[in-house]
C-alpha cells in the first residue's frame, strides 16, 4: 500500500509537470495509469475505508481528479468534464471533514455551474448551488456563475456578453464562449413565439450574429423560412391539442360501467 502510494505520488508529480507544460498527451497517459492505481486504494470513494494513509490517499485521489477535470476543459470536452467532475464530487462532498479543502475546489465548482448553464440545465444548477455552503458563495468563481445565471434569467443578454471580459480564470473562457450559443438559442426560442416574421437585419442584431450568411445558416438549423429579406417563423400547429381526446374509449368505458352497475350483486 505504502509503495503503491509512493508510486502514485511519483506519477502525480509527472502529471503536474506535464499539465504545467501543457502536454495533453502526456497528461492523458499519466491520468490513465493513476486512475487504475486509484482503484486499489481502499480509502477512496465509494469505499471510504479508514486506512493509516487515508488522508494521503484522499488528497492524492482528489488532486488527480482535479487535474483530470481541468484537462478536459483544456481539451474542450464537455462530456468528459461532466464524467470527471462526477467522480471528483464525492471528494468535495463526503471528505470535507477529514482532509483540508482543496485550493481548486471553488474554481472547479464554478466551472461545473457554468457547464450546467451552458447545457441549459437550470434546475440542476440550482441543486448544485444549494449544495455549496453559503460561505463559499462570495468566492469570485461561484459569484461569477451566480451573476451569469441571474443575467440569463432576467434576459439581460448584453450583460452576459459583457461578462466575457472579466473572467475569474482563463479556464472559464471555454464555457463562456459556449454560453453564447445557449443565449442565442434562448433568443431564437423567444422570437419564434413573439414574432410572425423578422427582418434579416433585425434578426442578425438580435441573435448576435455577424454576417447575413450566418443568419441564413442559423435559420436553416431552426427550420425557418427566409423570404423577401425577412425570416418567417413556422407556427407550431396548435389545433393538434384537442385531437387526442379518446372519445371512443371513453364511450365504451361509460357503457361498460352502466352495464356492470346493472348486474351488481
Amino acid at each position, binding site marked *: 500500500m505504502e509503495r503503491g502510494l509512493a508510486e502514485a505520488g511519483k506519477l502525480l508529480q509527472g502529471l503536474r509537470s506535464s499539465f504545467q507544460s501543457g502536454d495533453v498527451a502526456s497528461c492523458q497517459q499519466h491520468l490513465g495509469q493513476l486512475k487504475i492505481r486509484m482503484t486499489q486504494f481502499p480509502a477512496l470513494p465509494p469505499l471510504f475505508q479508514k486506512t493509516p494513509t487515508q488522508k494521503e490517499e484522499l488528497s492524492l485521489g482528489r488532486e488527480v481528479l482535479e487535474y483530470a477535470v481541468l484537462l478536459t476543459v483544456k481539451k474542450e470536452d464537455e462530456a468528459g468534464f461532466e464524467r470527471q467532475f462526477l467522480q471528483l464530487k464525492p471528494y468535495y*462532498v463526503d471528505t470535507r471533514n477529514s482532509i483540508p479543502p482543496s485550493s481548486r475546489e471553488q474554481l472547479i465548482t464554478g466551472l461545473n455551474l457554468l457547464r450546467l448553464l451552458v447545457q441549459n440545465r437550470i434546475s440542476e444548477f440550482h441543486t448544485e448551488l444549494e449544495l455549496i455552503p453559503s460561505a463559499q458563495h462570495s468566492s469570485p468563481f461561484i459569484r461569477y456563475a451566480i451573476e451569469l445565471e441571474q443575467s440569463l434569467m432576467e434576459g439581460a443578454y448584453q450583460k452576459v456578453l459583457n461578462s466575457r471580459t472579466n473572467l475569474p480564470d482563463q479556464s472559464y473562457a471555454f464555457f463562456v464562449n459556449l454560453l453564447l450559443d445557449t443565449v442565442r438559442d434562448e433568443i431564437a426560442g423567444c422570437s419564434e413565439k413573439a414574432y410572425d416574421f423578422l427582418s434579416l437585419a433585425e434578426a442578425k442584431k438580435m441573435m448576435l450574429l455577424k454576417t447575413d450568411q450566418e443568419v441564413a445558416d442559423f435559420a436553416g438549423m431552426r427550420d425557418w423560412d427566409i423570404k423577401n429579406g425577412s425570416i418567417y417563423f413556422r407556427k407550431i400547429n396548435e389545433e393538434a391539442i384537442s385531437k387526442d381526446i379518446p372519445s371512443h374509449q371513453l364511450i365504451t368505458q361509460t357503457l361498460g360501467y352502466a352495464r356492470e352497475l346493472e348486474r351488481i350483486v
Partner: protein
Amino acid sequence: MAAVAVARPSEHGFSQPTSSAGLLAMLDEDESVLQVYALKQLNRIVDEFWAEISAEISKLEALYEDEGFEERELAALLASKVFYHLGELDESLTYALGAGPLFDVSEESEYVQTLVAKCIDQYVELSVKANESKEKQPPLDTRLVAIVERMLNKCITDGQYQQAVGIALECRRLDKLEEAITKSDDVPALLAYTLRVSQTLVNRREFRHEVLRTLVKLYTHSGSPDYINICQCLMFLDDPAGVAAILDKLVKGDSDDALLAYQVAFDLFENEFQQFLLNVRDRLPDPRGHAEAGHPPAEGAESTPPAEGATAAADATASASAALAAEAKDEASAMEEDTGAAESHAPAIEGLGDLPIATYAERMTRLKGVLSGETPINLALQFLYSRNRADLLVLKNIKGAVDVRNSVCHGAIIYANGLMHAGTTVDTFLRENLEWLSRSTNWAKFSATAGLGVIHRGHLQQGRALMAPYLPQNGVSGSPYSEGGALYALGLIHANHGESIKTFLLESLRNTTNEIIQHGACLGLGLAALGTANEEIFEDLKSVLFTDSANAGEAAGIGMGLLMVGSASEKAGEMLAYAHETQHEKIIRGLALGIALVVYGREEEADTLIEQMTRDQDPILRYGGMYALAMAYRATANNSAIRRLLHFAVSDVSDDVRRTAVMALGFVLCSEPEQCPRIVALLAESYNPHVRYGAAMAVGIACAGTGLTAALDLLEPLQKDPTDFVRQGALIATAMVLIQETEARQPRVAAFRKHLDKVIGDKHEETMGKMGAILAAGILDAGGRNVTIALRSRSEHDRVTAVVGMAVFTQWWYWYPLAYFLSLTFAPTALIGLNGALQMPRLEVTSAARPSLFAYPAPLSDKKEEEVKKVPTAQLSTTARAKTKAKKDAAEKAEKGKEAIEKVGAKGGKKEEEKEGGDAMEVEKEPEAKKVKKEKEPESEVLSNPARVIPAQEKYVRFPEGSRYAPLKKVAAGWVLLKDLKPGEPEELVSQHAPAEQGAAAAPAAAPAAAGGAAAAADEDEPPPPEPFEFVPQ
C-alpha cells in the same frame, strides 16, 4: 440537502458515499479496468442507490450486450438487481439468467429469494404449458432449468424434503420427486405427505395419476410396503387388479397379514367407491371352488347352489350367511362372463404355502364381505341401532307446535323423523302416530313410505321384507304412491350396495306403466346401482324417459345420472339431446342434474360438456351446467372452477342459475371449509334472495359437520332474513354445520336449538321458514345423534355417494321427496374395533377429554315442553308481549352468562389436555372454582367398543397401554382391525344388540304374514315393519 450532505460523513465516519454518480460516470471510461471496478463497487451499493443507477440502466444493458466486455455477467447481475428494485420482475429474471453463475441461489437476500420464486413460477408455467398442450413447445431455457435444478438440489441437500417435493410436484418433475423421496431420512412420512399433497395441490387429473403411479412404485420398493396407502393410491388410479393382487397376497400370508388385508378393505370401503370395490372383489379368486375338491374352478362355482356355498365357509357368522348366499350367486354370474379370471385362479392358489385351504377360503370370504360392503354396513347398522339417542320429545314438540292442517309442515316432520332416525331402524315415532301419519296423501304418502327407507338404511338383508307391505302382494297393488315410495325406499336402503335388489327394482319398473311407481323405481334403481354404469338398467331408464311423462322422466334423468356417476360416458350427449327435445321442464331438470352427475370428478375432462351446457339458451340446462361444474370439480378448490362459478353467480339472468352457481361453490370448496365463508361472504349480502340462499347453502355444504365459527357468523344474519326461503336455507345450512356439535365446544348450538323452537312455534312465521326449521331440527340430531355429514373420508378423498347425495338433496327445492338423499351423506361417527374374525371384542379406549365436550345433548324434559307452550299464549296484547320479551331477554342473558362460564371451562379443559401430564389441578382451579355446585368433571372418559367418536374427538382417543389388543392403524376412528396380543385366551365379544327387540316386542302380530315369515327365517331379532297405516283422504 446541504446539511444532510455535510452531516452524513461525520455520523457514519465515511462508511457510505452520498451518491453513486461518480461510479456511474466511471462506466463511461475507456479503460475496461475502470469499468469493471465501477461495476463491482456499484454491485456493492446497489441496494441503496438503485434509484440513481436506474437512470443509467441503458449503460448497464449496453455493457451486457457488448460481447467483447469480459465482465458482462456482472453487468447483467447489476441490471437484474436494479430491475428487481424497480419491481420489474420479468426483466430482472432475464438479466439474472444472463448473470449465469454470479446469480447465487443460496444467498439469503430478499432479492435472490424473490427471483428464485419467480424463476420457479416461470418454470412451472412453462413446463405445465409444455405438458398440457398438444403441439410442440420450444425447449425450455436451459439456464432456467439449471436454476430450478440447483434450487431443488439445494433443498434436498439441506434436508428440506417437503419443500423439494412441493417444488418437484409443481414443476412436474417426477424424476426430482423420486429423488427427493428416496434420499430423505424418513421415507414413509414423506410418501404420506406426497400422497396428501398430490390430492390437494395437484390440479390436473392426468398428472396426479402419474404422481400416484410413481408413489405406488416407491411404496412397493421401500423396505416395508405400506399396503394401506398403496391400495389408496391404486384406488385413485382405478386399478382394481393391482389391489386384488395385493389383497390376495396378504390373505395368503400369516394372520397379521390377513388382518391388514381386512383393514385395507375397510379403508377402501370408507371411500364408498362401489364400482371399484366390486371390481376388486370380482378379481379376487374364488376359494370355494377349490374347497370343493375335484371340481374345476369355474364349474364348481356355477354348480354350487348358494346354500351349499355358504356351508362350505363353515364358521361364517350367522349374520353373514345370508350375505354369502347372495354373493355366491353373484360370483357365479361373474364367472360366466370372465373366464379369464377363472383361469388365473389356478396359479393363485399355488402361492398358499402351508396355509390350509379352508382358512384361506374363510379369510377370502370375510374379505369379500368387507369389499361388497355387507360387513361394514352391518357393523355400522348395529352401532347406530345400539347407540341411538334420538330424542322423540323433540319430534313430539314439533308435532304439537305445528298446525295439523298444514300439509307442508306435516310432510317436513316426516322428513325430519326420517333423517333423525336414519340408519337406526327405530320407527317408534311413526308407530306411535299412525293416525297422524295417515293424513299423508298422494305424494306425501310417497315420501312417508320412502322415509322408512331412510330409517332402515343399510338394513340390507331385511329391506325387501320391511317394505313388502307396501309392495303389490299377489299381484294386487295398493296405492301407487305407497308402492312408488316403497321402491324409492328400497333404493335408499340399498344405496350404493344394491346388487341384491337391482333385479327386483328393475322388474318392478318393467311391470308398471304408472308414472308414480316409475318415479319411485327410477330413483330406487339409480340409488341401488349407483355408479355401476349398468347398460341394461340404463336402457330401461331411457325407455321410461322416452315416455315423456313429467314425473317419471324427471326421476329417470336423475336415475341415469346416478347410474353413470363419474363414468363420463358419451351417454351424457344422448341425455343432453333429449333434454333439448322434450317440453317438460321437470324432465329437462332431471336430465340436467343427471348429466352433471355423469361427469363427477372428471375435472378438465368435463370442460367441453360444461361449456356446452353453460352456453345453452335454456336456463335449466345452464343450471345443470352449474351442477356439472360442482360435480366435476368437487372438493378440488380449483381456481378456474371457482372463477367460472362466481362469474355465473353475478352475471346470469336466471335466478335459478345464480342460486345454483353460488351453491356449487360449496361443493368445489368442501375440501377447504375455512375458505368458503370468506369467498361467499359478499354474495351473502346480495340484494338477490336467490344468491343469498345459495350462499347459505354453499357454506352449509362446504362446512358441514365442522362447527366453524366463521360459517356460523355468516349464517346467523341470514336466519333472520326478510325472505322466507333464505331463512329456510340458512336454518338448514346452520344445522348442517352444527351437526354433532356440543354446547361445551360451540355454545351457539343451544341458541340455535332455541331459535328453531321459536320459529316452529311462531304463528307468524311463513310455512317455508317453518319447514326449514323442522328439517334443520331433523338434521341436527340426524342418525340418532351418531352420524355426521361427511363429504370426504378420513383419507381426505371425496366420498362419491355423499357428494352425489348432497347434490341431489339440494334439488328438494323443486321436489321435496329428494330431501331424503341427504341420508347418503351421513357417516357414522364410530370407532369399531374388530378382531381377525371381524367380530367386535370387548375393548375399552380412553378419550383424554372432558366427557361433556363430546357428549350427547341432554334429552328434553317434559317441563321444558310446558315452557315452550307458555310463550305463544302470553302474546295477547302488546304489554304482555313486552313483558314476555323482557323476561325472555333476562332468561337469555342468564343463559348466555352460563354459556360464557362453560366456554371458559371448556377452554381451560383444552389447555390442560395440551399440557398433558402437567399439573392439571392448578389450571383447573380458576374456571372450575366458579361453578361451585357443579361437580368436578373427570378429565377423561372410557369408551367401550363400538364407541361413538365424533371427528373432533378423534385426536383425544387412545388405546390404553397394556391392552390385549393393538390397533392396526393410528387413527382411532372408523373400522379398526385389532391385533390380538394374547391369541390363546378366550375372547369376550360385545353382545350384539341386533336392531330388533323393541320392534319385535311392539307388534309382531301386526306384521303381515309374508314379511314376518321371511324375517323370522333369516334373523329372529329383526324388527317387523310398522303397521301398514290406513290412508284416510281428507
